[in-house]
């Protein structure tokens, strides 16, 4: 089995002496993981928070006074226009509301994902829903009927997941995905360099002419590929930890008893006990590990 180790050694030395390769397989995951995992969340949270607090103008047509007041209470500024739908489509207003024939129609530009329009539409809908509930309550009260008639019982859903599973949260799905991506890309670079790369560079012939069984050649190259994939996975985890620190500093929660805690949909905990055992066999474990953090 000595040739297997020698071949793996050669492949790894070649990789570690290639700065571009080291950067793309080991440094990049450390840098990208925080960006991928926490950047979009932090960006969107701040965007949504800012948009919710801001007063948005609403293009309105045919709205009764009580609806206008409800919109004002919801931090929206109604502006009468002839055609609210057109005004929203052309980007003059983030949201528009039309009242006609006993029906409120709320217009927004909703196809572009999370946007100011989406937030404003949500605010307008909530204001009109509140107005509707208030009017129902007033009508029932006028007829001496209790409001409880509409709510004879409550339905409540409780998340019974164990705390560790809850800790997975959104990252329970994302973490395995990103880790597998880094593991595959890290291993792939070495695998390509060790096979097609050798052929292309003209070094394969010399290796094939050596008295080494093909199986040993394949095993040596596989060993180097797996080692690099593992290192790439570890780099991804280091990036995750780094992202955790950044997230905590940028407004997440910081340090709990179990380790470092990040707030993102749910919570994810990192400490020495969970980090290494979970990262050692990344080829087979990531999908199950993301949601079941501890053994």
């Amino acid at each position, binding site marked *: 089995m000595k*040739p297997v180790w020698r071949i793996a050694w050669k492949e790894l030395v070649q990789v570690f002496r290639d700065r571009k390769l080291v950067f793309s397989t080991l440094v990049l995951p450390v840098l990208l993981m925080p960006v991928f995992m926490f950047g979009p969340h932090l960006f969107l949270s701040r965007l949504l928070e800012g948009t919710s607090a801001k007063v948005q103008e609403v293009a309105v047509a045919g709205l009764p006074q009580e609806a206008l007041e409800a919109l004002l209470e919801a931090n929206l500024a109604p502006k009468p226009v002839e055609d609210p739908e057109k005004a929203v489509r052309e980007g003059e207003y983030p949201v528009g509301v039309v009242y006609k024939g006993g029906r409120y129609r709320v217009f927004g530009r909703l196809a572009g994902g999370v946007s100011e329009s989406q937030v404003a539409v949500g605010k307008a809908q909530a204001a009109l829903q509140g107005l509707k509930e208030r009017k129902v309550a007033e009508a029932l009260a006028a007829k001496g009927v209790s409001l409880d008639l509409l709510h004879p019982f409550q339905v409540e859903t409780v998340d019974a997941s164990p705390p560790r599973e809850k800790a997975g949260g959104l990252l329970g799905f994302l973490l395995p995905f990103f880790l597998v991506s880094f593991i595959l890309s890290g291993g792939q670079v070495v695998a390509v360099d060790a096979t097609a790369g050798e052929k292309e560079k*003209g070094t394969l012939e010399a290796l094939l002419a050596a008295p080494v069984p093909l199986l040993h050649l394949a095993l040596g190259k596989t060993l180097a590929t797996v080692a690099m994939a593992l290192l790439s996975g570890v780099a991804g985890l280091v990036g995750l930890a780094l992202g955790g620190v950044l997230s905590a500093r940028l407004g997440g929660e910081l340090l709990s008893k179990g380790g470092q805690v990040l707030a993102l949909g749910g919570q994810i905990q990192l400490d020495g006990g969970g980090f290494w055992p979970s990262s050692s066999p990344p080829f087979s474990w990531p999908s199950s590990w993301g949601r079941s953090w501890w053994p």
Partner: protein
Amino acid sequence: MISHRYNGLVIQAQGLTKRYGPKTAVEGLSLKVERGEVYALLGPNGAGKTTTLRMLATLVRPTAGRAEVAGFDVRKEPLEVRRRLGLVNGGMRVYDRLTGREVLAFFASFYGLEGRAFKEALDWVVALLEMEETLEKKVLEMSTGMRQKVVIARAILHRPPVLLLDEATAGLDVFARRALLDFVKTYRDLGNTVLYSTHVMPEAEEVADRVGFLHQGRLVYEGSKEEALAVGEGSLERAFIRKVREAA
């Protein structure tokens, strides 16, 4: 020391054939190369020289026929054959990001040359090829000639009794080419056998003891260099053309 199972003949081939689908690269090639001689296999591009050498080096499996190198069958005992030969071809390279010493240590380990045995082998090959300056340099930083020396050193570090050279001077400058031709004669003088494949006739005229003309996968002529020169009235090129026309 590598053991051998041959007496006079180091390379023997009988009816050696290689087909790639409907295309026949080598057909019914029979060859006998004795110990301590340089046998030049001559032919134009596509004549089947490389395929022949690759079959002898156990890199491709013959479709038919049999061949022995240093007494070992290329089909049945490929690892034993590889232990007893060195292969150099024109397009062969070694690992760019390793130093000359690392490249040689890497390949030497496959022949059991480690520790003191490797040091002795290294000293021998460095003296033979005058390549002291290549040892601590990365291959990436070497000139073409220096790289070629590392490629050759890798092939002969284990002192194989058989050396296969396939268009080994391709792409070399005049100095590197001269060094290679001198090396071929030196290696032969050490009692080894060299199968030298080329389409450059003057090179064969300089180094060969015997020559074989290969055309469209068939050996059309075989003889000593002197005999071949007589056929071509002092020119191997004329001899080659004459024999190819006769065979056609």
